[in-house]
């Protein structure tokens, strides 16, 4: 009985409106992200059986291979589309034919594959628009390559069956009839490298930035929110603000110290993460120099200027988080409400963080994209990718939006801090049972 009374009281204390709101918020966020993932996956799955092909050899043999390939595709609910590639400027050609990827049968393919019984090369060209996991689900060349290889095998088999003879070289050739040569296009640049290799290299590198940003925003917000709410809750704020020190100085000191500590934490985190990542990549024996050069040629390595711009966006995000946390800190009535008040920042950081890791935000449905773009932190999570893929308009637009958002937040924070509201505003927490003295 005693236990039950106490249990009920504790449950009532803990399961308040703020806690319920937090739970609803988390569920809503996870459901939204889940739906986005599901859309991306089903879209990718739908397209995984589709092959776009260009026959530059134009022989009876390649036509037979394409016919077999088409049958294979259709059997797997996919489609095959034949296109014409006029030059080796694949960036331009992919744009012209409005495709993301194309399998090219080069000239001389038949001669090697059919007449000389040698392994013949085919080319897989792919345009990358994002480094997000889901946006590249269908960008691997393995499906197209395997399907094509089977088609070549089948065609050779059919021919040989018709001729009723097969030499040992021909049997050996059938084990490995086609070799894949992969070309990746980014913007206007192309490089002889597999997009899946790029993905695996960039994934390790690009994972660090969002994680650091996430940690930085959360640490900085929590620190300034605690710094302000604790002053209010511990009743030290009145003493401080009645002392001969301007409110602006108090605010600046708190903001700067929170930013410095957050930066220190981020630096530690970054150091640890980079050590962890370098340990991981050295373990898999990647020829880093070769791939670094390829990434540089494709524009997937940030220049010093781009690093500065990404840094500016990171700084803006931290300032925005600090100014929002400042406003929320003023609203805190007790320690519990202070923790709950951090929830809007957590959710609005989690959404772009998760989305930027797994999905190409710029390819989301327009309504959802508008919601994500309205979150000021999204633009920083997208900054590296926007810089790499030359999405200049989105990048500049994001920067301007963040600057305007920051100005508005600072104005609100200052107007609260400089007025009586800093003492009179509050939200949540237990209602004061004592009547106000004055």
């Amino acid at each position, binding site marked *: 009985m005693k236990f039950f009374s106490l249990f009920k009281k504790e449950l009532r204390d803990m399961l308040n409106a703020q806690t319920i709101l937090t739970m609803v918020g988390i569920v809503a966020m996870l459901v939204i992200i889940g739906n986005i993932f599901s859309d991306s996956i089903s879209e990718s799955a739908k397209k995984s059986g589709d092959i776009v092909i260009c026959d530059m050899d134009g022989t009876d043999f390649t036509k037979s291979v394409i016919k077999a390939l088409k049958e294979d595709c259709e059997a797997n609910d996919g489609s095959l589309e034949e296109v014409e590639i006029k030059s080796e400027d694949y960036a331009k050609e992919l744009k012209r034919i409005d495709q993301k990827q194309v399998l090219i049968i080069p000239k001389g393919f038949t001669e090697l594959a059919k007449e000389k019984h040698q392994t013949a090369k085919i080319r897989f060209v792919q345009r990358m628009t994002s480094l997000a996991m889901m946006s590249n689900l269908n960008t691997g060349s393995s499906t197209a390559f395997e399907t094509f290889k089977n088609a070549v095998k089948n065609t050779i088999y059919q021919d040989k069956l018709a001729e009723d003879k097969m030499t040992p070289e021909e049997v050996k050739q059938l084990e490995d009839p086609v070799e894949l040569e992969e070309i990746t296009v980014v913007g206007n640049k192309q490089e002889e490298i597999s997009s899946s290799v790029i993905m695996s290299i960039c994934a390790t590198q690009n994972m660090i930035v969002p994680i650091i940003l996430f940690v930085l925003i959360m640490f900085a917000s929590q620190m300034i929110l605690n710094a302000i709410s604790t002053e209010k809750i*511990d*009743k030290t704020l009145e*003493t401080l603000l*009645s*002392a*001969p020190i301007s409110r602006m100085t108090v605010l600046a000191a708190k903001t700067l110290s929170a930013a410095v500590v957050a930066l220190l934490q981020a630096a530690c985190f970054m150091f640890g993460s980079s050590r962890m990542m370098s340990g991981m990549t050295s373990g898999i024996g990647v020829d880093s120099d070769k791939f670094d050069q390829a990434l540089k040629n494709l524009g997937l390595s940030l220049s010093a200027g781009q690093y500065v711009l990404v840094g500016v966006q990171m700084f803006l995000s931290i300032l925005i988080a600090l100014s929002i946390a400042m406003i929320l800190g003023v609203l805190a009535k007790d320690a519990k409400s202070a923790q709950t008040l951090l929830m809007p920042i957590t959710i609005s950081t989690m959404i772009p963080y998760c989305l930027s890791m797994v999905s190409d935000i710029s390819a989301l449905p327009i309504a959802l994209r508008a919601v994500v773009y309205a979150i000021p932190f999204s633009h920083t999570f997208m900054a590296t990718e926007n810089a790499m893929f030359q999405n200049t308009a989105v990048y500049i637009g994001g920067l301007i939006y963040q600057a305007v958002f920051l100005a508005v937040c600072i104005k609100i924070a200052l107007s609260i801090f400089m007025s*009586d509201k800093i003492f009179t505003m509050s939200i949540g927490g237990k209602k004061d049972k004592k009547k106000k*003295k*004055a």
Partner: protein
Amino acid sequence: MEKVLEVKGLGKQYVKGVYASRDVTFDIKKGEIFALIGPNGAGKTTTIRTIATLLKTTEGDALVSGHSILTEPEKVRECITYLPDEAGAYKNMTGRAYLEFMASIYAKDGQDVIDYVNRGVEICELGERLNDKISSYSRGMTRKLLLARAIMPKPDLAILDEPTSGLDILNALEIRRTIKKLAADGMSFLLSSHNMLEIEFVSDRVGIIAKGMLLETGTPEELVAKYEARNLEEVFEKVVKIREVL
């Protein structure tokens, strides 16, 4: 005698039309101890917070050492210290570090910091406990530390809201004596208290406030005589009741 505080028609509306304090007028002379007394919600803390420049006045003005709370709040803050009721201190600091931190805000130079801290150490009488974290202090110890903080810079006007709340009888007596001594040395005090005995003992003049309005001011003796009461407690009761009838 030189006036340290002149309050002229001070009023505060949190919501338009609803007054927390209204037309409050009084003054405090150099070396004088003035106490505001009144029931809960009477407007004492609002008046005190407005004079301490924490809240913006919606009517009237107050001059502290000649500086207006409306136009020169920074100058006012240089002349006052404020000890709020139920105030706290930074729990992660030691008592000494807290005194040093607050002294550095009030001091003009390094020597001032040393002088203020020495005075604070003397007033709070916490001895070796000053080297312990404030989180380990009792309520009374914290209050003594906060009082020492408020008094150590020797401001023109020390505003103390319930200065001895949380202190035992002996410590409260000691603090009252300290306040009287500092007043004799020229420091002025604006107090707020529920403790009528304390007010009678320590104050030179008293202001009775109810429903946001200052109803009476005078020395405790004058008020006791005027209302034919035995003590200040009875005066307070009579004034508030008359006001309610009116």
